[in-house]
Each structure stands twice: as C-alpha cells, then as structure tokens.
C-alpha cells in the first residue's frame, strides 16, 4: 500500500493506519532532525511532534499530494517552531570536533577525516541551506518534492540548492586547507 493510500485512510478516520506510516517514516524523520540539530532527545521529541501534527492536520492532506513531501513540510515547520523556542540551536555548535554522523564502515581513514570535516562544514551553513542539502542528499528528494516542502517554485529550489552546495564545498575546502596547514 502506498504512503498516500495509508494517509488517505488516516484522513478518513482509520487512525490505525498511521502506525504503518510511523514505521516507514520515523527513522528518516529522526535522521533529518538529528543531522540538523545533533541532539538525539530533541530529534526524538520532534518526530513525536510531527506525528501529533499529522493527526491534527490530517484533514488538510490532499489526494494528489506526495506524503513524503507533506510530512517533511510538517517536519520543517516543527523544526522552525523548535528553533524559535530554543534560540541558538541552529548555529555552529560549541564542539566543532563532534561529528554530526559517523562515516560509513566501508571507507578508509583519509575519507573518514574528510567526512568528519565535511560535516563540520555542513554545520556551518545557515539552517535553511543545511536543511535543503539534507533533504536532497539523505532523503532523496527531487526538485518537485523539495519545492513542495519549502513552498517555493522548482526554479527557485534549483538555484538555492546549487548555491547551498557551492557554499558547502567552499567551507569544506577552507576547512581542509586549515587542517592540512595545522598538520
């Protein structure tokens, strides 16, 4: 059964079907929040908050909408509310050496260092750019889905994503240069 079919059933009052959507989406949502905030407890709370909102706003889900885009749009709003309530959580973390995520087990030492540096670079991006890159790279969203999540047109999304990637690459290479110099 597709995500959209399950969500339409939830909308029609069959709330038990939300369980299937939770199973499919709690990990991707957790990953999204954790990569943005680097706070496990906050990420778990936000996932719960997303499902509270899915129930609350279920009547707004439209038949031809992508559930994935819809739920990440909710997640984005949830994260923005969190940032408003907890100022400072979107900025550069105090401990820059702490990686946001672990590199995969199948990559070499040199690459591990680079992945760690890249995630430092990611944390230095403004939250909206970081969010865009995370959705595109880790949640496999296409331009259309990103446009739906961000509520802007596809052309604007293309431009924003290009600029975010270029900025990330610039920060990464700057950090890499600094690290090499320090060594």
């Amino acid at each position, binding site marked *: 059964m597709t995500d959209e079919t399950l969500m339409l059933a939830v909308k029609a009052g069959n709330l*038990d079907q939300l369980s299937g959507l*939770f199973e499919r989406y709690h990990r991707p949502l957790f990953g999204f929040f954790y990569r943005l905030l680097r706070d496990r407890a906050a990420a778990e709370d936000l996932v719960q908050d997303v499902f509270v909102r899915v129930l609350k706003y279920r009547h707004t889900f439209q038949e031809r909408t992508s559930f994935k885009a819809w739920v990440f749009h909710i997640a984005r709003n949830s994260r923005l509310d969190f940032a408003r309530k907890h100022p400072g959580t979107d900025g550069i973390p105090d401990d820059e050496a702490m990686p946001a995520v672990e590199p995969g087990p199948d990559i070499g030492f040199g690459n591990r260092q680079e992945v760690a540096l*890249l995630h430092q670079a990611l944390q230095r991006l403004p939250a909206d750019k970081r969010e865009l890159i995370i959705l595109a790279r880790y949640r496999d969203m296409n331009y259309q889905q990103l446009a739906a999540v961000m509520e802007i047109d596809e052309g604007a999304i293309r431009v924003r994503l290009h600029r975010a990637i270029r900025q990330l690459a610039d920060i990464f290479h700057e950090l890499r240069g600094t690290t090499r110099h320090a060594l």
Partner: protein
Amino acid sequence: MRCEDATDRLFDLASDDFLSKDPQVLAHLEACSECRRTVAHATRAWSLLGAAQEPVADSTAMRERFDALLENQVRKSLAPWNGRRALAAAAALIVTLAAGVLIGRQFPAVGKQDASYMTAMRQGMSEMRELLTQALIQQDVASERIKGVSAAGRIDDPRAELLTAVLDTLMHDADVNVRLASLRALERFRERPAVRQGIVRALGREESPLVTIALIDFVVDAKDDLAIETLRQLAGDTARDAAVRETAAAAAAQLLQGGV
C-alpha cells in the same frame, strides 16, 4: 554561455553523478577552468556526504511513545465511545465490578476457582480504572485532564502506557496547571527509568518558569545525574528567566556534589 549563466545550472539532482548533462553547460565547462574547479569541489562534497551513515534511531522508545499517542487518539475518535459518554460508561462498569467484588466478600467462597475469579475481577477493575484515567487525560477541559493525571498518580502499579500518556501530557499540554499536575503525579514513579528520562526531556523543552523550577526540584529530589547537562544548559541560557537560571545552576552544583 558565460559563467554567471552557467553557475546555477552546473548540477542536476536527477543525474547519477550529480552533474548537469545540459550540452550548453558541458560546452562551457570545456572552456572554463574556474567552473570546472567549482564542479570538482562540489561533486567531491556531494559524494562524501553520501559516505556518512544514517543516524540510528531508538525505535523501541519512539514506537512506545507513538503507540500511546495513537491509542489515545483512536479511543478519542471512537464515537460514541468518546467524551463524557466514555467516562460515564467506564464509571458505570467500575461500579458494577466493585459491586461484584463486594457481593463476593459477603458470600466468601473457599474454592480455588472462586479465589482466581476474584483475582481476575480485581485485575479487570484495575485495568478499567486505568482506561478511565486515560480517557480523562484526553478530555478537552483542563480540569478534567488534571483529574486524569492525578488519578494516574494514585494508581499503585500503572502500566507503562499510562505513564507514557502522563509524560506526554507533561510535555505537550498547553495548560501550565495540567503540566504541574502531571509532574506531581509522576513523583511516585520517579524510580522508573522511563519517567526519569521523560522528566529530563521535559526540562529541556519547558518554557514556563514555574513548571521549569518544579521540574528542577523533581530532578534534585530524584538525585538524577542525567539531568546535570540539561541543568547546565538552562543555567547558561540567557533567554531564560533569571530565577530559572539561578535554580538550575544551584541544582547542577548540588547534583554534581552528589547530595541533596
């Protein structure tokens, strides 16, 4: 094509290697070393992003909270078993069961079968009481929710689902008095790890100074070392109320010393 025309067209999410396949862009790249460098740096970054592992979620704990949320919502939505009618029905059932127990006491039976019947009866009453309590927690009126969480605090050995519902009320209820009542209800169960973890979470997200200070008192009374980091963050958060920062700093110091 000039660099400023190519700059926002160099990459394509739909492409396997993230590079644009637009012939005009490719022709520009052939001729422009600056854009080639930009592309090389960006594709390297894009590729390395893909080498990171997905963060591991604590699915069991998250599922538990979600199930409690869903159970409450489903119960709420089951017409006509919602609102006051559900409360009245549950209360009537409790009265009936209680009458059964009293009658059983009036006519004591000695058989093993009768004893197990009475045990099952008491268990049924206890479960019904928890259901009634959860139904109260879901009411729209704040005073009813306070009754619900307070009733939960009086149950001797509540199921995990009920405590999760009280913790969720503590974290999400819009009414300060309901959140305070939830906290009071949880005091009896502060030795349970799920309650301790939930309280620390609530401490990190609570905005009302009154409730925050009550939460701080809770973790100090519970001698909960897990709260030290959150207390330090509160103490250093200049956006917080001065009394909250002061209380949090004192509490962190007290917990660090290991005494109350």
